């Protein structure tokens, strides 16, 4: 019977599972709102009916009936006036409005207190003078911050630890804060002398960090993990979470895929560990693991028209909503995410409401962005004179000399203006809290027409019930991201690439035809502005990420939690090429593609924590997780469209010819069981063991499940007497961890014999072409029935340390990370249905070894002055060994005459993606390239160096002086090579022969216009750089007089103020995807949307 019920449930739930989840979420949201509003109003019912009494009496009555107290100054408020009242109301504000209507009295509600003020007498309250001495262990403490709680009024202790402060009334609370010490709050309560003894406790030791399926105090952590809070994030015009943490964390290398608004990034946590693409870490937002695939459909215009790099799948997240980002780096931390943990895990936690009165925040910024520098090309005059000098049969009156002078880069770049508005409200009580926000971002790109427009809303609520044993958290965020994009980017021939065309366009050509005023177009010549104007690429992505997680404490210490999450997006992309565009003259082209993603997760966890005796703390976790992934897409592509208006909702495309329609659908599931034990012995010895058993539908019958264990041990040396007695360390901890994680990010259906109808399986079987063609069905993949996980085993040794009472602390980690059973598309054992077969390469491995250092210091604390600095350093060695294949080629070159060029190889004994090509020596007297020759007298291919940096580093600093704050952030990358593909296809003299522009350096290089175009180290450049990524100057307005506004901060931020580099392209922070057959490439710059320099003016208001 039970089985039957189970079956029925399954039937119902598998059909309607995500609808159900949505229903649950809505139900909980409404339930919780109801609860919240009830709580907030203090469950108060005021019934006051008094005749001819003093105001004082009325106030006393209200105090009696409610939890409110009134604060006022008798000298300003006439409380003895006679009033008559008759209330029967719930809302305190309504009561007060009526009570004080037409009087001099102003009120303000702060939590349970109601402050009364005289709006006509602008006098201050009679202040109370408070003095005192702040000490620590009997030593006076200079530089301690003292301020009145809830205000910015404050002071600092002098050299002898003494302070003086004026407080408005005796209800004020003084806060004593000093770096490295536990803050204290002391109510004034009529005292005029308050002496304080601050207890040492470094703030950072108190920090709570988020780990998979739980939180832990940082001092109890056994794995390698970095936490960034709001203050640590990159400021400025950031539209994705990746950009917020770029450069901030040791061991995490984040490279922009482009400078486009909302662009994606390449994230490597502890090196490149896989040959395939899809090496991004797992993103978990509030416990919901996200899909790393792009939510946006691929662009469908062909004919050389470029498609930009995928924008970030996480650009739907409103950066203002993020409270913290935790990055799990080693396997002992990520093993709880099992088969998705091999590339690290990034956990994003969004803001929750606090307790107390609602806090309303409004923040906004306006920004101005420009391209820092354009690429220098020949001017119109030198273009003509150089061509006349070097090319036979070309004179000044050559047909390609149009007699104008155009700076084409100027024509496409612009000054971009962006603005952002964020409003949030949060608050709550002891038992329920809420945070809601609304965000609007309008970000212009620095190239005309490109922009990103985002609207995001979020509601996070939390409610307790059943004597606080039941807790429910519900979170929902909905967003619409609208992107207007340009034909710039990776999948291109030079013809369709706006940026390449703008760099190399003939500078003597006019933008507009002077006779007609139309854009100037002649056959076979591209006018970059026409390419820009006559092509549209618009994507709208709607996304909902919602979760609900009720939990209940069954018995003390034992908690059951259910976590359900839904991640759903719908994205529509429209591409349009107008008939006015005459290169090539194919008439209007239109394409519409849609991609729908529905993923959900259901997780059950049981956690138990207990303390046995004084010395044994045990935390246990057991859980089950089910994840469902569904993606479907549909598209239409048409040439010779009769209308140019495809971007308008004209689905009934009329065309002379050529239409193409396609669709696909993929479904996958994962099921996992996991557990973790944390054992804390005497606060000194910490043990963690985790295990996850993951099953995935992507893998074969025999290999559906994989086990991913980890073990870690930490020893808090600073708790040992022999260390404590040294009196040097305030924290010293050794960490050792080992773990195994996996990677399952492969396509679908690799283990099955699946037949596809493809264009390359069509044939005529009934005679010539007057007979119907047969649409054949064929094995689209070579099946790999035994395919299983890729495995990464990593070991971590770390030391956490802190000296000088919190003034210097940090950590050093060494790691050894070995990836085996790599899933690689290797050449198939022919004859096989396809060229390659995805298999686990059991022999070979990729090894990443590295060291990470993080240092934080408080350099100075003086009266009114604080100076902090944080630095990070990472060095990683990467090598490939024992692959059974001699060379895997990748890194596709791009450009005319560059067909079939690959520039990188993966080969044994070398770092991944080592550059491989010709070694350029010089130009001979005829201006032809001379290359290193091999034994046979032919030019030979050699290894040319590594795209991986020797080390990367970051340095940020924070200065606070009185109400001013100042911060800056430098980041650097050292010793990597970048292949400048743009220079290889444009910076060559041959361009002049075909009436295209080139670089002045090329003219001086001695190269002949007849020199052939080939990949060599001539176009490999040092990609090292030092960037002042960010400078911010802020000012907190002293706001004693405006009781409405609690806090007002004004700031100005400059991003990307300067870059010191030898790299000749737009920017060395770049990674264009040039992967070949799914094999990753890195360190290639091919016409990428350049990064901008941005100045931003912002304001944060708190009410």
């Amino acid at each position, binding site marked *: 019977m039970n089985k039957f019920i189970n079956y029925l449930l399954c039937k119902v739930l598998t059909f309607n599972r995500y609808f159900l989840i949505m229903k649950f979420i809505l139900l909980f949201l409404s339930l919780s709102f109801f609860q919240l509003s009830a709580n907030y109003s203090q469950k108060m019912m005021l019934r006051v009916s008094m005749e001819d009494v003093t105001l004082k009496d009325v106030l006393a009555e209200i105090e009696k009936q409610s939890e409110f107290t009134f604060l006022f100054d008798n000298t300003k408020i006439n409380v003895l006036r006679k009033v008559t009242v008759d209330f029967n109301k719930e809302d305190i504000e309504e009561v007060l409005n009526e009570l004080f209507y037409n009087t001099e009295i102003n009120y303000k509600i702060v939590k349970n207190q109601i402050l009364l003020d005289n709006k006509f007498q602008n006098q201050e309250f009679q202040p109370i003078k408070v003095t005192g001495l702040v000490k620590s262990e009997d030593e006076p403490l200079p530089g301690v911050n003292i301020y009145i709680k809830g205000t910015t009024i404050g002071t600092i202790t002098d050299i002898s630890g003494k302070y003086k402060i004026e407080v408005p009334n005796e209800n004020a609370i003084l806060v004593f804060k000093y770096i490295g010490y536990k803050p204290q709050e002391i109510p004034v309560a009529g005292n005029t002398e308050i002496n304080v003894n601050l207890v040492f406790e470094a703030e950072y030791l108190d920090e709570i960090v988020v780990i998979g399926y739980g939180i832990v105090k940082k001092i109890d952590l056994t794995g390698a993990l970095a936490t960034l809070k709001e203050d640590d994030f990159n400021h400025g015009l950031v539209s994705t979470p990746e950009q917020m943490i770029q450069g901030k964390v040791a061991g995490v290398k984040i490279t922009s895929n482009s400078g486009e608004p909302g662009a994606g990034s390449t994230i490597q946590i502890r090196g490149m560990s896989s040959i395939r693409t899809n090496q991004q870490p797992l993103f978990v937002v509030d416990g919901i693991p996200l899909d790393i695939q792009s939510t946006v459909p691929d662009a469908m215009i062909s004919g050389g028209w470029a498609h930009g790099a995928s924008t970030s799948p996480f650009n739907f997240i409103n950066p203002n909503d993020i409270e913290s980002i935790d990055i799990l780096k080693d396997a002992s931390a990520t093993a709880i995410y099992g088969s998705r943990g091999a590339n690290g895990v990034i956990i994003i936690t969004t803001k929750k409401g606090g307790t107390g009165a609602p806090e309303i925040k409004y923040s906004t910024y306006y920004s101005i962005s420009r391209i820092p520098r354009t690429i220098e090309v020949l001017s119109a005059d030198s273009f003509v004179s150089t061509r006349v000098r070097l090319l036979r049969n070309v004179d000044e009156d050559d047909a390609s000399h149009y007699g104008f002078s155009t700076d084409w880069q100027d024509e496409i770049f612009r000054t971009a203006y962006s603005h952002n508005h964020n409003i949030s409200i949060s608050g709550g009580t002891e038992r329920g809290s809420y945070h809601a926000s609304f965000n609007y971002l309008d970000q212009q790109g620095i190239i005309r027409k490109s922009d990103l427009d985002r609207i995001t809303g979020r509601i996070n609520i939390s409610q307790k019930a059943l004597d606080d044993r039941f807790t429910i958290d519900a979170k929902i965020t909905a967003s619409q991201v609208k992107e207007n994009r340009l034909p710039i980017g990776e999948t291109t021939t030079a013809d369709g690439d706006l940026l390449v065309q703008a760099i190399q366009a003939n500078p003597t050509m006019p933008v507009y035809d002077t006779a007609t005023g139309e854009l100037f177009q002649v056959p076979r010549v591209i006018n970059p502005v026409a390419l820009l104007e006559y092509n549209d690429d618009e994507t709208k992505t709607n996304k909902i990420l919602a979760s609900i997680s009720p939990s209940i404490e069954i018995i003390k210490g034992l908690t059951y939690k259910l976590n359900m999450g839904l991640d759903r997006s719908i994205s529509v992309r429209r591409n349009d090429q107008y008939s006015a565009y005459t290169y090539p003259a194919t008439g209007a082209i239109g394409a519409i593609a849609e991609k729908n993603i529905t993923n959900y997760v259901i997780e059950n966890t049981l956690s138990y924590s207990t303390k046995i005796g004084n010395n044994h703390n045990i935390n246990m976790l057991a859980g089950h997780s089910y994840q469902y992934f569904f993606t479907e897409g549909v598209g239409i592509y048409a040439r010779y469209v009769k209308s140019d208006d495809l971007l308008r909702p004209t689905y009934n495309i009329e065309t002379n010819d050529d239409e193409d329609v396609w669709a696909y659908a993929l479904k996958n599931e*994962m099921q996992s069981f996991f557990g973790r034990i944390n054992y804390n012995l005497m606060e000194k010895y910490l043990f963690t063991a985790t295990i996850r058993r993951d099953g995935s539908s992507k893998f074969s019958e025999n290999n559906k499940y994989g086990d991913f264990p980890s073990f870690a041990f930490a020893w808090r040396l600073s708790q040992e007497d022999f260390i404590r007695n040294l009196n040097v360390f305030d924290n010293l901890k050794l960490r050792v961890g080992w773990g195994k994680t996996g990677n399952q990010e492969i396509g679908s259906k690799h283990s099955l014999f699946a037949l596809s109808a493809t264009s390359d399986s*069509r044939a005529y079987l009934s005679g010539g072409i007057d007979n119907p063609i047969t649409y054949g069905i064929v094995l689209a993949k070579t099946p790999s029935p035994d395919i299983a996980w890729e495995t990464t085993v990593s070991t971590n040794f770390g030391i956490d340390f802190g000296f000088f009472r919190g003034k210097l602390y940090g950590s050093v980690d060494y790691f050894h990370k070995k990836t085996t059973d790599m899933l690689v598309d290797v050449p198939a054992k022919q004859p096989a249905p396809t060229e390659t077969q995805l298999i686990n390469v059991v022999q070979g491995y990729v090894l990443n070894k590295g060291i990470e250092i993080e240092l934080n210091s408080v350099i100075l604390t003086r009266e009114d002055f604080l100076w902090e600095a944080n630095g990070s350093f990472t060095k990683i060695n990467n090598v490939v060994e024992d692959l059974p294949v001699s*060379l895997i080629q990748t890194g596709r070159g791009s450009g005319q005459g560059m067909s079939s060029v690959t520039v990188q190889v993966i080969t044994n004994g070398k770092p991944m993606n080592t550059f491989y090509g010709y070694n350029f020596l010089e130009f001979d007297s005829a201006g032809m390239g001379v290359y290193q020759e091999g034994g046979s007298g032919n030019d030979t291919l050699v290894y040319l160096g590594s795209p991986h940096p020797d080390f990367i580093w970051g340095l940020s600093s924070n200065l606070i002086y009185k109400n001013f704050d100042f911060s800056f952030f430098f980041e650097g990358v050292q010793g990597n090579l970048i292949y400048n593909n743009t220079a290889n296809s444009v910076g060559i003299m041959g361009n002049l022969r075909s009436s295209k522009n080139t670089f002045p350096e090329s003219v001086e290089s001695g190269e002949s216009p007849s020199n052939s175009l080939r990949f060599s180290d001539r176009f490999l450049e040092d990609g090292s750089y030092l960037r002042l990524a960010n400078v911010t100057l802020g000012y907190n307005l002293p706001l004693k007089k405006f009781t409405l506004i609690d806090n007002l901060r004004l700031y100005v931020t400059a991003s990307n103020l300067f870059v010191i580099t030898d790299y000749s392209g737009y920017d060395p922070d770049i990674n264009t995807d040039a992967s070949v057959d799914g094999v990753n490439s890195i360190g290639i710059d091919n016409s990428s949307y350049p990064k901008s320099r941005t100045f931003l003016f912002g304001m944060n208001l708190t009410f």
Partner: protein
Amino acid sequence: MKKLIKILIIGITVFYGCTDLQEEILDETTGEENLVYENLYELVAPTYNSFAQLYFIRQVWGIQQVTTDEQMIPTRGTDWFDSGLWQMHYLHTWLPQHEHIVMCWNALAEGMARANYSLLLLAEFEENDEVKYFRAELNFLKCLYMYYYMDIFGKVPFREYTEQDFSINPKVFNRKEAFDYITNKIKEIKPNLGDKYIVPYGRPNKDAATMFLAKMYLNKEVYTGEAAYDSCLIYVNEILNSGRYSIADDYFQIFAPDNDENYTDNDEAILVTVLNDEEDMDNRASWHEGFQLTFHYNQRVGQGYSGGYNGMCSQEEYLEKIIAHTDTSTDVRWRDDRIYDLTGIYCGFNYGQQYSPEGELIYERGGVIPLFFTFEAPLYTSTESNGVRIMKYWLKLPTTEPATVSNDFVVWRYSDCVLMQAECNLRLGNASEALSAVNTLREKRNAPSLSSIDLDGLLTERAIELYTECHRRQDMIRFGTFLDPKEDKPYVSSETRLLCPIPQNAIDALADKSLLSQNPGY
């Protein structure tokens, strides 16, 4: 509250009951579902598509043509270096990772694997004529892919159609083993193939099998060291005497865009691949990219043509041989003006000043230098004008598809048979019969009769009759001239260049490296 607990219980129940992690196929299909007789054509079609795509510039065709003295793609300034791939072909300096060699290896393998999978599915059907023909044809095509493996690489990876576990190494045949397998197999299946007109145009029939055997024995000396021209002659004569074919009256009609309509007893075509520019058969199917690869950027014809890519051309010494061998003013094979008025381009060889369809002078891209195709075409330093351009499979007009063609590619044809008969006779000592065969052909082509013929002359006759038809490398190897010096290649190539190297990837793929060893010299 009770409601919440209920939901929790549902939450727990949902997955425990449901998940077996079976992957569902939503947008594709499995073989079993489709194994119905109505789908017979769909199940066998992929193998025929591989056949149609085989004669592609970056695969078999390029290796058979651009390595010879007939075709080249010189580097024209910044254009056409393409990693040196075309230069390597011409100079015989290719390496085991040469992209076209790798692509060729894989394309042949794909064809064999598709034939195998189709054969596996066919085994499920009851025998009737249609199934019987398809089974024989699939075997024929599998043998054809093996034949090119044997010809180009000297080694043939082989699986029986029942062997569908691709983690297991294939067998590898050497040339001798492959020769025996193919000839035996073709003889075995020949009775099961249909007669001409019984199986539709475009599919291998009995005559194609006969021609296949003739080709095998013609080249047997190269493949096995033992000559078998007498055996070749038997099969050649079988076709010549069949009455089902003849020398075409209109030479360029053989290669016309609608050449499928020629399929009569007066036709030349013995084996063809059917192509159609209006169907997407994958871009590779445009085997020769005839117009586009060859002609200049400023030579534009028809709607949608944005001009050519100015790549491939012929070369001086080769052309001079032809000019010495025939009278180019009368020989219809040299050039023909049937589409000149519409395109400014001749069928056949194009040289000298180029004109637009309107008769205006065409210039190089700078707009100043007239586009004048020269006989001379230096390999490293050609200009836009160097080199004579060939258009044999001529343009369909008007056309909208620059990248594909609807001319069916003629793999084997009757005139080749005539020249093979001449060659066998000459090699067997019957010079007069050889001369008479050659002159019969030349008479049809409006070329002056020869008074005598030797092997050199016969090779040149094959050059003028069969240019760009994917025979040149095989012919030059059989006639012993493949390794000879040529323009910009002053040296005799090493004998190892008679075979292409096995792609390194193919060797790496097999766990047992001794199974597929590299050809000597690489």
